[in-house]
């Protein structure tokens, strides 16, 4: 079973050299810490920056320099600023290679729900609907089950959806799964110490298991 750091570490293995990546708030943000040194990856912040650097040292924070989670950040050599329309323009045009974000539910055909719980105060979708509608490759980082113990990998999303047929891969505390183009969660890897049975029990949607499922290497 992985903790949040473990999920972030595993997702970092999916990031390709020479790619532009947008990281959502929460676990996805942690992924940046585990991208191997020397790999050329440029992080996009949808509030108008390519080339997110580390958090600033105390006293060096700049109120004019934040990420989409409103955290103070820094730039790196080669960073560029732009406005929000160009930011979503490059997302919409498919220039961002990979989007990593959290979810409340994912359906077996790749629908994602991550912005609204009926009956609860709705804070808004932010840039999530734009990102999931446009990104070439989307990886979801989330817990396999919710706090009530119910699976978040479903035949169909119960919650209001954020985007249709867009999620390509899911990394949870239990497993790595691909969402197949024809539907279904294909089990790719188990988390250390997790059995296929555990994953089966935690997955409500169609789970596809072919051959031996290797344990992930972190």
């Amino acid at each position, binding site marked *: 079973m992985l903790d949040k750091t473990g999920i972030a570490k595993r997702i970092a293995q999916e990031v390709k050299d020479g790619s532009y990546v947008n990281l959502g708030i929460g676990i996805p943000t942690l992924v940046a810490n585990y991208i191997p040194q020397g790999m050329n990856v440029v992080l996009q912040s949808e509030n108008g920056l390519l080339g997110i650097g580390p958090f600033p040292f105390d006293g060096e924070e700049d109120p004019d320099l934040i990420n989409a989670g409103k955290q103070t950040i820094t730039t790196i050599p080669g960073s560029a600023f732009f406005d929000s329309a160009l930011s*979503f323009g490059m997302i919409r045009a498919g220039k961002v290679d990979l989007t990593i974000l959290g979810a409340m539910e994912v359906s077996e055909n790749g629908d994602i729900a991550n912005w609204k719980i009926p009956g609860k105060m709705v804070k808004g979708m932010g840039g999530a609907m734009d990102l999931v509608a446009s990104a070439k490759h989307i990886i979801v980082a989330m817990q396999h089950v919710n706090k009530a113990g119910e699976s978040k990998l479903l035949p169909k999303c119960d919650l209001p959806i954020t985007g249709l047929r867009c999620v390509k891969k899911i990394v949870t505390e239990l497993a790595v799964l691909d969402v197949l183009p024809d539907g279904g969660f294909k089990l790719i890897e188990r988390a250390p110490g997790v059995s296929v049975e555990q994953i089966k029990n935690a997955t409500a949607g169609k789970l596809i298991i072919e051959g031996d499922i290797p344990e992930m290497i972190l």
Partner: protein
Amino acid sequence: MNKTVTNATEAIKGINDNMVFAFGGFGLCGIPENSISALVKSGVKGLTCISNNAGVDDFGIGLMLHQRQVKKMISSYVGENAEFERQLLSGELLVDLIPQGTLATRLMAAGYGMPAIFTPAGVGTEVAEGKEVRTFNGKEYLMEYAFDVDFAFVKAWKGDTQGNLIFRKTSRNFNPLVAMAGKITIAEVEELVPAGELDPDHIHIPGIYVHRIFQGVDYEKRIEQRTLTPRA
């Protein structure tokens, strides 16, 4: 073409109840602090406010919400704001939540004279309800309309007397788009310089989009999430 006015109070002349306003800023980064203060003092009400976020309880657009000046917010994310939540749940405040890219592009469309744009954001979701869906190259898009903004309020880093604006780092965000969208656009700047002092290649928004400009004062520039790297 000198567009300088002395301060925010003079800048907001002509505002009226029930107008549509748009505000630059992302969270509390790059918000027009001086204009918001003047709007709070003015007592104008019944407003429709287009802004990516709604400020916090005691800062930004939150100050206007506190005075019950806002009838409707059009935003992508309204964040943590207790008074906002109370008004929303009590039905005093209307909220249109729209995708962030759609918000940005609808503002841009106004500035580019494009009455509508197409975006895939929200297709198949409740955002698509009642909207025209159109397929291009096998992919579905929603048709979204340009905003119609009476007064636009932006904050720039530097500006000149002709209204040319330069933004700084990620405080640029929605500001150029809001600037382009206003029938009347009011820019406040940290540094107002004479025409000719800004490099014409560095200008982010040409003065043709700006109607009034003033030197802002007492910027707080509040940070929402001071996140630091520990020194080794």
